[in-house]
């Protein structure tokens, strides 16, 4: 069974699905709602099939082993040393799982969101499937060149999803997103080229395979490695997004359909933090240590800045986008504190943030579509007319503020622990993030959901069966993983160990051990007796 190309299947299946959806009779425009829902149905079917294959794949994964698994390696462009090489470790697998869970949910939730686009309904769902396949490929790539190509390729579907199906200023948002991403990509390209130059000069000739590059880079000149690190880091920081290169995200989230925002923030942005672990730490351990103080300060600024600016937003999607800036700050903090707690927390955070932000974007999307406005002051009293919607919104919000018992708590707490162990100052600043989170979530909840029913809100229907069905899996995961995160942690732990070994970081021992107490206490005890 293990010779079967599981990961390639996971990449190709949605891409073929996208082609199939385009091949169906086109439905478009105002009449779309009365025409057949075949594109949606096929897209949902393909995404569910992909989910099924991913679950089978996950069972092939051995949680006791370290390093990449389910590997497939083929030469691609020998002149550059580029390979078609896929493989997953715990980090990659967790993000692949996030992608295959969120895609069907998003398709189901976005059932009618492709109706009023610039292009056909078919293309809306085809791009979503294409995005799924490319994202899975990005998380599974074990060749830097392949990663880079897929990293850039993911821009195409998301560009069309924002630019073709978004709100009034969708063109502005789409182009802003594209320019940011291309700029980031360009910076990374320089580093990718630089890697080639390094590896071409080595004994084995040019290679982009991670496993072969790591030892080459370990022997490379410190300055060169640092420059290459900076290139990768800037690209990933723009993707993540971190302060101060975050401003494309609020605009994109404001204009995109809710489903697109989920795919963008919950899945694609994770490529940024995924890349930091896989490439920045994996290839440039010394440079990562060197950059740690600056990155940690930026991470803490992102946490606080994102939270504060979120509080001041009047548009719901923009607000959620800024909360993500804060959350990504936590993830980056966890990565660069370079200890087990931080890394396990950060990896788990990537998954949990996908769930909580997914719920928030989708459920507010339902609300915005009903009211025809995304501005917070236009709402009020929704809980009275749509209690189920309000309830799900609250659960999503509480998970976003990391309430214990919901899955994001475990990851945020582990990141805080990691930060404290690394240097308690970071934890002391970051901890204010938990107060800001309570403020931005509960203020939004208060202003939109409570109080008397505002004019324009009376007609808001509660969620229908399809919408509840779309949210249910996320809610079950959020609550279930809140109490039993062990299965995911078991997957994550070995890859964290590998990364930390690469970086050469060791967890500090606690200050006080049993030996201290008994050695120090024995005299006193004897004295007391």
């Amino acid at each position, binding site marked *: 069974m293990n010779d079967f190309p599981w990961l390639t299947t996971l990449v190709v299946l949605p891409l073929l699905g996208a082609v199939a959806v385009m091949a169906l009779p086109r439905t478009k425009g105002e009449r779309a709602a009365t025409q057949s829902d075949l594109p949606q149905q096929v897209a949902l079917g393909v995404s569910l099939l992909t989910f099924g294959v991913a679950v089978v794949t996950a069972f092939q994964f051995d949680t006791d082993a370290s390093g990449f698994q389910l590997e497939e390696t083929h030469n691609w462009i020998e*002149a*550059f040393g580029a390979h078609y090489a896929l493989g997953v470790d715990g980090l990659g697998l967790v993000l692949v799982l996030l992608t295959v869970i969120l895609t069907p949910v998003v398709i189901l939730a976005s059932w009618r969101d492709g109706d009023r686009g610039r292009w056909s309904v078919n293309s809306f769902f085809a791009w979503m499937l294409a995005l799924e396949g490319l994202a899975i490929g990005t998380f599974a790539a074990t060749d830097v060149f392949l990663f*880079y190509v897929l990293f*850039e390729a993911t821009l*195409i579907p998301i*560009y*069309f999803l924002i630019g073709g199906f978004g709100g009034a200023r969708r063109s*502005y948002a789409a*182009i*802003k997103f594209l320019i940011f991403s291309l700029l980031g990509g360009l910076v990374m390209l320089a580093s990718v080229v630089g890697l080639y130059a390094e590896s071409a000069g080595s004994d084995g000739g040019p290679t982009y395979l991670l496993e072969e590059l790591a030892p080459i880079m370990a022997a490379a000149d410190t300055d060169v490695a640092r420059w290459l690190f900076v290139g990768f880091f800037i690209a990933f920081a723009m993707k993540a997004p971190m*302060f101060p290169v975050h*401003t494309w995200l609020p605009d994109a989230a404001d204009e995109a359909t809710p489903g697109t925002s989920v795919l963008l923030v919950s899945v694609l942005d994770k490529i940024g933090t995924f890349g930091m672990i896989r490439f920045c730490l994996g290839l440039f351990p010394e440079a990562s240590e060197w950059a740690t103080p600056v990155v940690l300060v930026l991470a803490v600024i992102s946490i606080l800045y994102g939270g*504060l*600016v979120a509080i001041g937003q009047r548009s719901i999607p923009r607000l959620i986008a800024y909360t993500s800036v804060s959350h990504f700050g936590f993830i980056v903090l966890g990565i660069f504190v370079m200890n*087990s*707690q931080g*890394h*396990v*927390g950060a990896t788990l955070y990537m998954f949990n943030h996908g769930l909580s932000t997914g719920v928030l974007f989708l459920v507010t999307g339902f609300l915005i579509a009903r009211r025809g406005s995304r501005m917070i002051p236009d709402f009020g009293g929704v*809980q*009275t007319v749509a*209690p*189920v919607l309000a309830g799900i919104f609250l659960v999503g919000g*509480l998970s976003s503020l990391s309430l*214990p018992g919901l899955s994001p708590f475990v990851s945020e*707490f*582990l990141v*805080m*622990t990691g*930060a*404290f*162990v690394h240097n*308690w100052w970071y934890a*002391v600043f970051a*901890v*204010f993030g*938990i*107060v800001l989170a*309570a403020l931005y979530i*509960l203020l939004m909840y*208060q202003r939109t959901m*409570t*109080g*008397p*029913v505002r004019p324009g809100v009376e007609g808001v229907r509660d969620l229908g069966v399809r919408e509840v069905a779309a949210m249910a899996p996320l809610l079950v995961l959020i609550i279930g993983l809140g*109490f*039993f*995160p*062990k299965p995911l*942690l078991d997957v994550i*732990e070995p890859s964290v160990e590998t990364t930390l070994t690469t970086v050469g970081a060791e*967890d500090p*021992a*606690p*200050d*006080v*051990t*049993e030996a*201290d*107490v008994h050695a120090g206490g024995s005299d006193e005890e004897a004295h007391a007796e």
Partner: protein
Amino acid sequence: MNISLSEAAPVVSPTSGDGVLSLLWLIPALPALGALVILVLGNRRTSPWAHWLGTATVALSFLIGLVAFFQLLGRDESDRSVGQHLWTWFEAGSFTVDLGILYDPLSSLFVLLITGVGSLIHLYSVGYMAHDAARARFFGYLNLFVAAMLVLVLSDGYLGVFLGWEGVGLASYLLIGFWHHKPTAATAAKKAFVVNRVGDMGMVLATTLMFATFGTVSFEGVSELASGASQTTLNILALLLLLAACGKSAQVPLQSWLLDAMEGPTPVSALIHAATMVTAGVYLVVRSNFIYELTEVGRTAVVIVGAVTLLAGAIIGCAKDDIKKALAGSTMSQIGYMMLAAGLGVAGYAFAIFHLLTHGFFKANMFLGAGSVMHAMDDDVNMRHYGALQKAVPVTFLTFAMGYLAIIGFPGFSGFWSKDKIIETAFGESLWIGLAALAGAGITAFYMTRLMIMTFLGRKRWEPGVHPHESPKVMTIPLIVLAALSVLGGVLLLGDWIVDWLTPVVGHAEHHELPLPVIAYTLIVVAVVAVGVAVAWLLVAKRDIPREAPQKVSFVTRAARADLYGDAANEALLMRPGNNLVEGLVTFDDDYVDGVVDGTGSAAIGMSGTFRRIQTGYVRSYALSVFAGALLVVLALLAVNLG
């Protein structure tokens, strides 16, 4: 200091349990199940039976708790700490966090209080909420609260406590804002949660500091290793835990949310904001005795917080015309007493818990009584509109009177024993602390007498059209039971039972050397209480009570009406600067951070605009640009390759 430090705090070392003691997990699980069923199925589907399901689950937990308590009673003193590992919550590196139960003399008392008073309040709510369309949802939240509170007191480590801690915070948020259509309720709910989050920062930092120092956050591990930590670490740990406790227990400076929390339905005020949740901070300090025993700084801080709050709450209570807010001020004040006792260390822990229990009885009693009065008065809470209600609601009046006598410390009633012990111990610590506690007792007597007179005695000042009537049995029976407990709660002190019972958890102190004989303190306290009652009688009962609050009042009254300017201080020091910061940052983000981007990007956007005019919206153009990008990559690689 008379407290002997030679005897270190007991180390938590649970043994395994059998019989009912292996079924302890059911105690929180039953109400949790109730909450799950009601909240998932929804208000409409469960409304015919949700209230009975909710009441039954809590009552069942009480029965299990009662059997378990007697099992524990039957065990040897050294064997009264039962542990049960449930599952490993999470682990990362060397950090393992288990969820498990610690059932010992301390938690056993809390279980009885929470499920016992909880059952009574559930029962009362069946009647009180009978006409609310969302009664099922109410019981769902109430069950959620009980479950979370039980997790809080039964957990065997700090993160388990934190799980319950935030769970009760959530339930409190949901129940304060239960009537969500009222903007005041929604605001109060949010305020409670946010203020508590400030306290939670203390909890998060304390637990992370514990991990960094001891490598564990379990009570067992921390209590064993605490003596090895540096003094600075212990001081900081104690202060961080105190910050958390201040949030949950509405102690100064995080007290401001409790008065607003009275927006919630009255049974909520009784259960959550009087009898149980707000005492969680006291529980945390007492449970952490193995830390506080090692830090003089920490204990002193607890004492100061307690003393300040007990006076502040009492003063606020004197000026309130809203019956629930007067009681809320009183709750702050009484928890201040408990805090103060907990800060006195080994000598005080048991008395803190003793007062916590008796307060749970009499304050729940009085809050439910207030609810019964409101029920009679068409939900009016203004005591200036009450008066002469003793005949209209006789059962409520009599039961309330028992609570009243208990709280002011009338000799023989439960509050007399518990408060007297705290004041006495406070004098043992320092004259000033003792005097503060004593003054508090006098003020308590004043404001409670004022409340009694304004509500039940004097002349009728009712609103037109109000026809007070006694509440139904489902409401008065809980009142009667709680009244009985308010009277008899003092039996816990018989033969120093509660002190001995808690000794395995909190240690045992040598008796204080007091400057005066014990009976002298008791007499002084009784005398001060009598003065307080007399002053209230002269100032309130002997005068006419205007239906409108007089505006020409002293500075002190004005300050007390304004909650001693707690909100004003928050507003000036935190909210306004905070708002300015947020607004400034939003502008900064839009104009500068994003402005730079738009500025540099505008050229490119302009270019693409031209580009689009040529090939409007054609997929071809995008494909072309992507292709051009790919070409660029290949060219770059070739250039390096060739070079």
